[in-house]
C-alpha cells in the first residue's frame, strides 16, 4: 500500500469529499466551537437530543479543516447517533481512532480529535457532563469555546 493510501484511505477520502452530518442545526440543544490553532482547523458542532433530552438524535458540524479533521468528524457524527449524551461524553478517543484506522502523528492526532473534543465540550455546556480529565482546566493546544 502506498504511503498516501495508508494515510488517506478510501474511507477517509469518502468522508472528506462526502461528509455526513455537514451543516448547522438551528435551535440546537447543544453547541460548541473548536479550533486547532497550530494549523487552522475550525469546527462548529451542533447537537439535537431526542424527546428524552438525553439520546443524541442528530449531530451536525460546519467549519473548515484538513481532510483528516473533516473525515474524523464526519465519522463521529455517524458513530454517536442514537447514543446517550452521558455515554458519548466519555467516549474513549481510541474508539474514534480505531474507526479512522490510520497511523497518525502527534500533530495529525489533534486534527483527528478536534471534532470529538468539541462535541464533548458541547455536551458539557448543555448537560454538565464531565470533561475528560486531560482537558480539566486547560484545553491543551485546542481552543474550545
Amino acid at each position: 500500500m502506498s504511503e498516501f493510501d495508508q494515510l488517506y484511505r478510501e474511507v477517509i477520502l469518502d468522508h472528506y469529499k462526502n461528509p455526513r452530518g455537514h451543516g448547522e442545526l438551528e435551535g440546537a440543544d447543544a453547541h460548541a466551537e473548536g479550533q486547532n490553532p497550530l494549523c487552522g482547523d475550525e469546527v462548529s458542532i451542533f447537537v439535537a437530543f431526542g424527546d428524552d433530552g438525553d439520546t443524541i438524535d442528530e449531530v451536525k458540524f460546519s467549519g473548515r479543516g484538513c481532510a483528516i479533521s473533516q473525515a474524523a468528524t464526519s465519522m463521529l457524527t455517524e458513530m454517536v447517533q442514537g447514543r446517550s449524551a452521558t455515554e458519548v461524553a466519555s467516549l474513549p478517543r481510541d474508539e474514534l481512532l480505531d474507526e479512522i484506522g490510520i497511523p497518525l502523528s502527534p500533530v495529525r492526532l489533534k486534527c483527528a480529535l478536534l471534532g470529538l473534543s468539541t462535541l464533548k465540550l458541547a455536551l458539557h455546556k448543555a448537560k454538565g457532563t464531565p470533561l475528560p480529565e486531560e482537558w480539566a482546566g486547560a484545553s491543551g493546544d485546542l481552543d474550545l469555546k
Partner: protein
Amino acid sequence: MAVTAHTKLDAAKLRADFPIFEQEIRGKPLAYLDSAVSSHKPRQVLDKLRTFYETSYANVHRGVYTLSEIATAEYEGAREKVAQFVNAPDARELIFTHGATESLNLVAYAWGLDNLGPGDVVVVTELEHHSNFVPWQYIAKRNGATFAAIPLDEHGELRFDTLDEIALLGNVKVVANNLVSNALGTINPVERLAAWAHDQGAIMVVDAAQAAPHHPIDVQQLDCDFLAFSSHKMCGPTSVGALWGRASLLEAMAPFNLGGHMIRSVTLEETTWGQLPYKFEAGTQPIAEAVGFGAAVDYVTDVGIGAIEEHERELLVYALDRLADVPGFVGYGPPADRRAGIVSFNIDGIHPHDVAQVIDMDGVAIRAGHHCCQPLMSKLGVAATNRASFYLYTIPEEIDRLVAGLHKAHKLLGP
C-alpha cells in the same frame, strides 16, 4: 541599497557543506523548502562549535585563568563580527540574546514599560510575526496606551496613505515593523517608516529575523533605533540571537533580565547596573552558540549576502513561473521584483495541512499553517497557507519536486 559586483553563488556546491542533505526522507533525498522557519548548518559552523567546546571553552569575563581569557576573546570576537554584519557603529550596542523574539520582548518590556502610557500610540503592522505584535499589544494594554496596526493593500504591502490617520490617534511613541515578512516575503521600506516615526517623535524597532539571513542590513542606513535578528535562520545554532540598539536608548533603559554579570555593585540597599552590553546580558550567556553565530556570519559573508539575494530572486522567478501551472494555485504577496524568496500559497479546495502531508511523502518539506501571523491570515481571509522558502543551498530541482508534488496533491485530494 548599493549593488556591488559579486560572484554568482553555486548552490549545488554549497549544498555539499551541509551534512543534513545526506539524509534521506522516506527513501528520497531531502528537498528543504522551509528556510524561513529555520536554516540548516554548514560543517564550518558545526566544526567551530565542536572545536570551541573541545579546546577553548570556559565561562567568560569571570576568570583570570588562561582558558577563560581565550573563551572571552572568542565570545567578544563573535560579538564584533555580528555587530559588523549589521554595520553597528559600536559593538557595545550589540546585545546577545536568545533570539529575535527575546530581543523584541526586551525592548517592549525594558523600554516600553517606562515610556508608554495613556495617550501614547504603539504602531505595528498587519504583516507582523506574533513576536513583533504580541509583546507590543501586551505592553500597550498593560500601560493604557493605544495599539494600532498599519493595514496592507491587496499586494500585501503597507498602506502609507493611512499614516496620517494613525498619527491622529495620539502621541506615536514606537513603530515596530519587519523588514521582510516571513509570511508573504514583502520587503518593507523601513527607512521611509523610520523617517515617519522620527517625525512623530517615536522610536523605530525593526524585526530583521527574516531579513538578516538574506539581505544586507545596515542599521545606520535604515536609521532605526533597535534591530532584532536570530542566529538559527542564518546557518547558526539555535538559542542565540542579537539586539542592536542605540547606546543612548540602551543606557537610559531599565534592565531586562537581572542577576549575575549585569551589575556594577550589589548591596543590601541598592544595586547599580553594569556597562553596555553587559547590562543586558545577565547570567551565563549561550557562549558556544554565540561563537557559532560568529562562524555563521563568516560563512554567510564569504558566500556573499548580495549573491544570496540574487540567487533567491532567480529561484523565486522560476518558482512563480512553474507554480502558475498548478491547477487551483492561489499566490499571496507582492510581485517578484518587490519580494524576498518566499512563496505563500493555497491550492484551491485542499487544506494546506493535507498539501504539506502529501508533499512530505515525496521528501519535500514546506510549511502549512498561519506562520505566526494570525492577523495577516485574517486579513487574507484564510485560516492557513502553504509556504515554500529558499536559501543559499536551494536548487531548482527542489522547486521541480515541489511542483510535481502539488500536481499529485491536486489529483489525489482536489475537488
